């Protein structure tokens, strides 16, 4: 699997996701600077976490207008898979690659720590190595991860199986106790209509080694490799 990780001014988890990809594929992904309009053909595009443009406007709003995003949108429309994590999710939402928006956390504070996620479906490029209903532990680190979509969009997401992950308690119960940011319906990650783009707030790339937060995020990358190689 050939992957490209986009780097915007203020990206800061591009190294983490590059490390996770290298761990799983044995090779370094291509790092693409935002100013470059074009980049090599790849099997996967990653929009990494961070604070692109300092989050000084609405999170992701500036990066979504970056030259390289026009190319990302074009390739996504052609079906090239896009994994958008945290600030990447915010950018993808701003760019219209995935439905919904990400608002300030309900408690108005940055939150970092492990959360539990319920895998909603194994029927996707990104989740094929998980079982539907499986509970995994991965960290979050964000101040604006409060997912929101209107009722109509939500219904469509639910009906079409476009919810990827939901925050839950360690035993899998989906209720307020496991929700770190107030996201509607505990939604932690969603797909686009074609399920070729996934946006999620948690950081699977920070859960790929037993000594450093566990391995529950590794299957996401392994699944991608299997599907895209």
């Amino acid at each position, binding site marked *: 699997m050939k992957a490209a990780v986009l780097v915007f001014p203020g990206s800061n988890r591009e190294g983490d996701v590059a490390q996770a990809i290298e761990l799983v594929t044995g090779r370094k992904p291509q790092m693409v600077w935002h100013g470059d309009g074009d980049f090599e053909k790849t099997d996967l595009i990653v929009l990494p976490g961070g604070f692109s443009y300092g989050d000084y406007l609405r999170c992701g709003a500036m990066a979504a207008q970056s030259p390289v995003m026009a190319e990302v949108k074009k390739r996504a429309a052609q079906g090239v898979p896009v994994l958008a994590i945290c600030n990447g999710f915010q950018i993808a939402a701003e760019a219209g690659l995935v439905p919904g928006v990400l608002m300030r956390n309900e408690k108005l504070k940055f939150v*970092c720590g492990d959360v539990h996620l319920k895998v909603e479906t194994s029927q996707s490029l990104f989740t094929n190595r998980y079982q539907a209903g499986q509970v995994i532990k991965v960290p979050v680190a964000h101040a604006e991860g409060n997912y929101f979509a209107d009722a109509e969009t939500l219904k469509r997401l639910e009906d079409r199986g476009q919810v990827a992950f939901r925050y839950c308690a360690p035993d899998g119960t989906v209720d307020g106790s496991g929700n770190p940011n107030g996201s509607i319906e505990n939604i932690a990650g969603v797909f686009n209509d074609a399920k070729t783009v996934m946006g999620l707030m948690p950081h699977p790339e920070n859960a790929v080694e037993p000594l450093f937060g566990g391995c529950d995020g590794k299957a996401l990358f392994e699944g991608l490799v299997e599907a895209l190689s």
Partner: protein
Amino acid sequence: MTIAVEKNPPVKLPNEPQITPQVVAEHGLAPDEYERLLRIMGRDPTMVELGIFSAMWSEHCSYKSSKVWLRKLPTQAPWVIQGPGENAGVIDIGDGQAAIFKMESHNHPSYIEPYQGAATGVGGILRDVFTMGARPIANLNALRFGEPSHPKTRHLVSGVVAGIGGYGNCMGIPTVGGETNFHAAYNGNILVNAMTVGIAPTDRIFYAAAAGVGNPLVYVGSKTGRDGIHGASMASAEFDQDSESKRPTVQVGDPFTEKLLLEACLELMATDAIVAIQDMGAAGLTSSSFEMAAKGGLGVVVELDKVPMRETGMNPYELMLSESQERMLIVLKPGREELARRIFEKWELDFAVIGRLTDTERMVLSWHGDVVGNIPIPPLVTEAPVYERPWTLTELPAALDAAQVPAPKDWNASLLALMSCPDLASKAWIWHQYDHLIMGNTAIRPQDGDAAVVRVPGGHKGLAMTSDCTPRYVQAHPETGGRQAVAEAWRNITATGARPLAVTDNMNFGNPQKPEIMGQFAGAIVGMAEACKALDFPVVSGNVSLYNETEGKPILPTPTIGAVGVIDDIGKAVGSRLTQAGLAIVLVGETKGWLGQSLYLRELCGREEGAPPPVDLAVERRNGDFVRGQIAAGRVDACHDLSDGGLLAGLAEMCIAGGTGVTVKQPAGTAIPSHAFLYGEDQGRYVIACSSGDDVLAAARAAGVPAVLLGYSGGPSLVVDGLVSLPLSAIKQAHEDWLPSYMNATE
């Protein structure tokens, strides 16, 4: 353009105020210090020159009251690459890698404007570390606030924590450890001490000493604005009722720009373009240009009109004294300007050649072709005031007999009260606002161990890091307190299995012109120096913050010790979480039941008295080396040093962190009253959880280290035979609820 270097007085600018004794006083220069200035200059200074002397001779920049004492600290060891005097200390951690680290205070600004004060504190210490060529891999912070009931405390906690998080999170550097205390003595002066640890190849370390006459002096980063003018002078004075009006002297942080600056600097450092580099911190362009020239034994011409400016109408005085953040000064090799310019422009940062090095040993400032300042550099350094201020040592109070301290009437209630007191209560509300996981290298997270342990990128090594001080001990007897702060940092590193290597110290004290405060400083230094020597734990960097007083009321003397250690195989590091049943619980070290200055005495008896627990450094070392050896031998599942709250608090922390209970009892034959045994704060002690208690006890006997079996892990409760029986859920709730309830309460 060539600027003539001459001794004639520089031109005065239009509207330049007259220098009167009042103007001199407003610049924080004492009359005799101004006399000294006149002697050096041989004429009246211009305003910009006066401003430069004022900044360079401020306590903050010159260490004039502390210098004579700081020299007593040991700074050498075979693994020390760079000791105090540079932007940060550098130690060799093997495999061609160096750890670069320092702790620095941002106390005064954080009290006036908590969010920006704390944020720029983090920004400043990060720059100190990446200026030397290191990529920062971890941040820590030590915070002291006033008593929770004080009307400002909640606001200050909220702002400081948000500011630290706001800066560090955006920079993408994990904040992995620290400490937070509350005490009435900090009501008018909080302490915000921030530490950064970075990694660089040992052969790619950058220093501040300028070299090469004619080499270009380059300014990069943010533009210069009017923020933070006189910040260094503010940080060198006591607060009074008008301190709030000093808000304009606080700088405003822009972590996004600093992130770009970090990446741009590291990119430039990968080339061979840099001769010297220095960040613009306190006293901005003044201290950075001055220090670079002074260290290189050179002169410098600075064309101030070339400095990128944020506002129109700025004058040389403002440009030299602004503390605008996210700026660096670089001496480049000749001909490398374009290479460097391309890198900074790629990162959308300002880049300007603002001067060049000369051989005159003078700092010449020009403004649109006119010389506006012309100062000889060496005398400003060599003839800087140094004070051996009068000092009175604090006498050692009489030791408190445990018999004079009542036992708790209700043991369960006493433990819950202690675990929920502000100093011991969980600080999860704080560190969950810090990204402590970014970079994917955090092996031991906050609250999971005595020190944070972070992987050194690209290998299997780990760095253990911690920050420690027990101000109530230092207040009671500075020498003992200084010794204890170093010993505790060493112990915390040891408890993870790492080898303690070196220290950065952040000395926070009151007004040094009071003999008793200077005595606290002197005493603490003597204690620290002894401990650093005995434990082979040199001081490689540090910072002094004096005048932490408001209306004559000083803070508790607080020499914060930041420390770093290394563990060769990070897989062998242990935390303090008790996660398994059936483990033997072994107490290492001797318990005499020392209750003087203990948390039990303060929180449950309402008394702050007696002598603090003595630290026997030979015993400390022996016990620590033993514990580290047992961890290396793979015999230890969890380890926790004993400090605040003694044995019982330590056990409770291990239990709730790992979700496993214990059943223990005081060993037979100890004549110590139970409350002294369980709550005493004797030093040099650890609790070890291990699958083979017999092996550890036998090894301890062989090593001559006191060790006893207390009981075993297991069950849902913490049980001390006949005294305490509490479900972990109750302890956890008491421990975790205090801070969020306090912060969420509305007044």
